[in-house]
């Protein structure tokens, strides 16, 4: 439900402050930002749905989430390492 795509604000149109040019991987479209607070600026990332920005993407939260995913990966790697070690020990023992 509701295809939403992240895009980066390139410019806020001077004569239409509710419109911003947004870039999605080199593709540009005017997106209505009237549903967001007016603290947006170029470089901000927003979530686009049917030509409207629905939310500003929170980069801190994104980083945190990725960190969690990394940590799971690391934990997994550690586990694998631990597993290997235990197996070697078992062989030894």
């Amino acid at each position, binding site marked *: *439900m509701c295809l939403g795509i*992240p895009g980066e604000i390139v410019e806020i149109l001077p004569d239409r402050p509710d419109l911003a040019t947004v870039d999605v*991987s080199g593709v540009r479209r005017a997106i209505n930002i009237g549903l967001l607070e007016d603290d947006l600026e170029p470089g901000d990332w927003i979530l686009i749905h*049917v030509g*409207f920005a*629905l939310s500003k993407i*929170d980069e801190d939260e994104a980083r945190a989430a990725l960190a969690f995913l990394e940590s*799971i990966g690391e934990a*997994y790697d550690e586990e694998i390492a631990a597993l290997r070690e235990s197996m070697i020990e078992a062989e030894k023992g």
Partner: protein
Amino acid sequence: MTLAMRFVDEYRDADKARALAARIADLCEPGRDYKFMEVCGGHTHTIYKHGLEDYLPEAVTLVHGPGCPVCVIPMGRVDDAIHLAEQPDVIMTSFGDMMRVPGGNGSFFDATARGADIRMVYSPLDALRIARNNPDKRVIFMAIGFETTAPSTAMTVLRAQAEGLANFSVFCNHVTIIPAIKAILDSPDLRLDGFIGPGHVSTVIGCTPYEFIARDYGKPLVVAGFEPLDILQSVYMILRQLAENRSEVENQYSRVVPWEGNLKAIEAITTTMETRAYFEWRGLGFISHSALRMREGYAAYDAEHLFAVPGGRVADPKACQCGEVLKGVLKPWECKVFGTACTPETPIGTCMVSSEGACAAYYNFGRFSRERVKEATVRPQGARP
């Protein structure tokens, strides 16, 4: 060439998926089966598009919920829309998703083949532009979607009003997700262990509206993003709640979804629209307070006010088991007509039309024995350079 797309490609990483999958397997209690519903059709699409089920243990089953705005439109509303499109001087506008949805009298594509002027738009604002450019036509926007899309329609109507555009109106079919979830929770034939909550609806309504699910029904709900790792992580988070005997609303998608939602968006909706007493959902029947209509103050933009809409009810085809599929009672392939009489080419139910529809997703992406597919995708020696 394949430059990474930020906030997209990070969440499609196979290594992280493998790690998460291991965690998920760890969290499953041996001998216990888990059934989680992804409420949102977008999630269904992601699950099949990326082959996410390959990472899930046998014990975890994902059940596809009612969150496909196209799938839940009853046939009668499609017929009404076509009726509107066939009025003199009308240009009907609609998202591409609607074009192939069958009503009792064919689809939008059949209507254009019969002569109706129905145009696909990317945004409701495009419909407004069409109205501006065709002052001698009456332009109707076929508004569909949950709370995610309703604010865009609302903003478009407000803009039409500001511009004084008199030839633009909305055929409002916006629905609201909470009553549908409640209907499913109250359905006697269903056993679910948790919910993957709709990410983009939640950008608007926030996370609090789901609290009754955790509180009153004791089911964990995790609001999830739309990349496969988002969903996998949500499964992990639900399993963790279950393992820890918690039932809470959690937000996996915090990079996009603020807990409190988007107040401006809600205001736009409530300014222009109000809750209908009841609305028919395809397969689910009538659900109270489950849809939006234009407020009286915006009657000038309400196609249901401006035109005589037949409003007939069309019974779903007898063979159709979309209701059971939408409630998650049946897997798509368990429907009697799945893949034989009902295919994307000849859909009987709407679940087979939208690429978010559970049946279409299952048919297009997962129609084949998983084992043989897995076997096939192992690279033969020497085939790669």
